[in-house]
Structure formats: C-alpha cells, structure tokens
C-alpha cells in the first residue's frame, strides 16, 4: 500500500475504496475539504464519516472544451450518494450524452493516474454505471 497515494485526501484506498467526509457534529453537514468551521451552523467539531459508494446521477454535463491541460472530453456529474452529494467524473462510459442519463445508478470505482519518480502510483476515483 505504501506506494499508492489517493488523488484527493478524502479518497480512502484499500480493499473497499470509498470517500470520507468531515461531518459537523452539531448539525450533520458534510464537507470534503479541510474545515475551519461548519458553513451551516459555524460549529467547530467534526468527525469522519464514510460516504456511500453507490448513488444516482442528479445532474451531468459532457465537457468538450476546456483550458489547456484538461483532458477532454469528460463527463462531470453530481452523484447523490444516499443523501450526500459528490462531484465526480463518470468513468467507463463513452463521454456522450447518449451514454449517461439523469437518474442513472452508479458506483464508485478507482483508476490509476500514473507513477511519480519514486514509483508512487496516484489513484483517482470516478463513478461508473452500477
């Protein structure tokens, strides 16, 4: 495991890859970034919670034109994972509006983003059709 690194620090690798959120202890609001306090209630206590790895697409787009260095085309979507919304690419589909649909059931999957000079492999996540 030591030669793998998650693409973002809210991705947990291992036998059952999943996302973790910082959940506000006071109001239950969930965030994926490092927090100073809660945007919902200004509470400052958080704990880590696992986010469901299956969900439903509530919105998507196929980005076909982007800044240099951004790999296009790709499908960007909002996935409702049992009440927690996640922004993600939809992977393992043709990136066209015909192959993705609103309400589609999807599940988290991981993929390699390559090795650095020390041989460490970065692992990204996406959602694929369930």
């Amino acid at each position, binding site marked *: 495991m030591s030669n793998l*690194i*998650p*693409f*973002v*620090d*809210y991705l947990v690798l291992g036998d059952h890859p999943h996302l973790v959120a910082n959940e506000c202890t006071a109001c239950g*609001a*969930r*965030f*994926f*970034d*490092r927090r100073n306090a809660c*945007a*919902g209630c200004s509470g400052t206590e958080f704990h880590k919670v696992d986010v469901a790895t299956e969900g439903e697409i*509530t*919105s*998507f*787009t*196929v*980005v*076909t*034109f*982007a*800044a240099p*260095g*951004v*790999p*296009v085309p*790709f499908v*960007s*979507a*909002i996935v409702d994972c049992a*009440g*927690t*919304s*996640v*922004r*993600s*690419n939809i992977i393992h589909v043709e990136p066209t*509006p015909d192959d993705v649909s*609103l*309400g589609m059931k999807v599940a988290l999957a991981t993929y390699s*983003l*390559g090795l*650095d*000079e*020390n041989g*460490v492999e*970065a692992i*990204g*996540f996406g959602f694929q059709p369930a």
Partner: protein
Amino acid sequence: MSDDVWILGIYMTKFGKYPDRDTVDLAAEAVLAALKDGGVSMKDMGVLAAGCLMGGGGIAQQIQKQIGQTGIPAYNVSNACATGATALKTAIMTVKSGEADFGLAVGVEKLAGAGLLGGAGKSAKAGSTWTPQGRYGEVMDTEGRVGTSGMPGTFAQIGMEYLHTYGSTSFDVFARISEKNHSHSTLNPLAAYTKAMSLDEIKNDIMIAYPNTRPMCSANCDGAAAAVVVSDAKLKTLSLEQQRRAIKVSASVLTTDPYEEACQVLPNVNTLTRNAAKIAYERAGIGPEDLDLVELHDCFATAELVHYDNLMLCEEGGAVEFFESGATWRTGTTPVNVSGGLESKGHPIAATGIANIWEICHHLRGEAGPRQIEGAKVGLAHVIGLGSACGIHVLERSGL
C-alpha cells in the same frame, strides 16, 4: 420627501472589441456620458464605486485621475459577475445613508478574446513527486478529474439539475432560449452580436459543455456602463426634465448563498436568487406579475431557464412550460432579455450589472427605439456572481 434613491443618468458603451482603448478609456466614456445624461458633473458626485473584475485593482482612482480627482470616497468593488450591481448598490447605500446627495457607479471590463474563464486552475503537470496540496489534498489539478468547476460545465449542470428535479426531458429548451436572445439582439445596436441564429445553427455550433454550445454561452467582449444616483430630496430641486427622466430604484438587494446540502459540490444559484427576489418584491411592493420586462443573468442558456423559476416569473417547476408559452419573447407577457442578454449582447463582467439597469431604464424612459417595450412602467434587473452573489434591482418610471 422620502428616502427613495433615483437613477438620474445612465449610459452603456457599445459592447464589442476595443483593441485600441484600455479599461480607463471605456470607463471614462461611460462615466462622462452618464453624468451628461443626468445633467450633472463630477463636482456634484459625493461617492464613487467602481469595478473591473479582471483588472489589477484601483480602477476607481485610475478613472478619477483621468476625469476628475475631487477627493471623494471611492470604493473599488469586486464581486464576481455581480460586481457592477454591487458597485451600484454601494452608491445607492451611500446616498440612502445621507452621506452624499449624488453617487456614481461604474463597471468596466476588457474580455474580448479571453476564452474560457474559471476552472483552469493549476497546471496539471504530473509532478516529479506526488504531493497533496490545497484543501482537498489533491496531488494534481482536479479539473477534469473530479468533475468540473469551470463555468460552462457548472452552469450546464445547473440547468440539467433543474430538468432532473422536475422530471423534464426537454433538452431542446436551452437552445430555444438562446434562439430567443440572439433574435432579440438584432434590435440592439449596442450588442456585441446582432445576428439572429436559427435553432439548427445554435444546436450544431461547437459544443462547449453539453447541452451548451458556443452561442448558448455568454459572449466575452469589452464594454463599460455607468450610473449616477441621486437622493429624493435633491432630485426635487432639479429641473422637471431631470425629474421626469429619473428612474426610481424601488429595491436594491444583494444576497449570498446560504448553506444547503450539495452547495459546495455544485454551486446553488437558485436559493440566493429566490431570496433576493422575495426581498426585492416586498421592498418594491410589487409582484412578478407587475414586471413589464426583465433582464436576467443568462451567462449560459441553462441559467436563464432556472432563473425564470427563481425570480418567480412562473410557477415552481414550471420554467419549461413558461418558456414554451412564449412568455419571455419580447412579444410575450414577461419579456426577458430584450437586450439580447449575455449570450448575444455580451458579458464584459463588471459592466454587466449596470448595463442591464441601463436597458431597463431605457425602456422605462420610453427611449428604446425599435426595441421599446411599449408602456413599460416597471422592470427588474438580475445578476449572479458565482461563488456566489446575487444582485437584484427593481426599477420604476417616475410617472411625471
């Protein structure tokens, strides 16, 4: 006498490409013309608020150095695409507070040829060593790898989310909204683009982020707009002609996005607009059914649809049917973006939140020529700055 504030003079430059003029040139043109339109001068102004989002800062003082260093307080305003509306509100608040009789607001931008804005992020170079950075601990740029935070994709998702929420499959509606706005701009000589586009032309143009093709995205261009505001008491000392042409600011509202689930995953441009609209209608004492015209923030065709609902121009969930009824064409019951909107008139960011006020004032004064909405008495101007800020102004003609 009341604590009402009025727009006394207002102006927008033609939107387009000005390779030989800088932002101060464009802002100066707008300010000097707005002052002339109001029959006043820089010496009368008690406050200046100015915005140029992509500029380096200090635009207010740069403008003063070209057209009048009178020593008044100046605010350099930056609030994403709501910058112009925020500058105007700053001038209005100062006059309302009694600190000044006259206030001046200006927004200017040079964006011609700027390409995509936002979401470019850091370079995505595969580093020599993966090193987590930023608040998400990412080891490389997240754009295109964790969805998109670029403007076209974000607003595409906002429109698609609306269809999903209300179970619509009318994906064509967005292109037809764009067809309307490009048609409207043919009557606006100040628009950056004045060519009508057929539905097929729009749908078959370059796809940027499904369902938004290029003509469904706001047009980057150069431009400036400026407004002079005056207190009710001071206006009553001015000429009858100035009083007749003055436009009452019946509401000037600014909101930000309150926390909701998902709002930090996909920006929620709905709730803050709905909140601003509710406050604006209450302050103005009017309802959406009273509006003779609306200029709303169609930064993408997908955005226009959701704002029909957010501004309560239609029943909740009924934006698609509302558009399909023809209501928002210039011949409809609630004409929306008769200027051509951001998709065709153009979107020089900081100028937009004053240029939309200019459009409304032009109609309320009965000075809009061939595109005049006959008998217009009340209008609403709306902008959204992603991040987010919403500015709404409700405007009424004087009745004199």
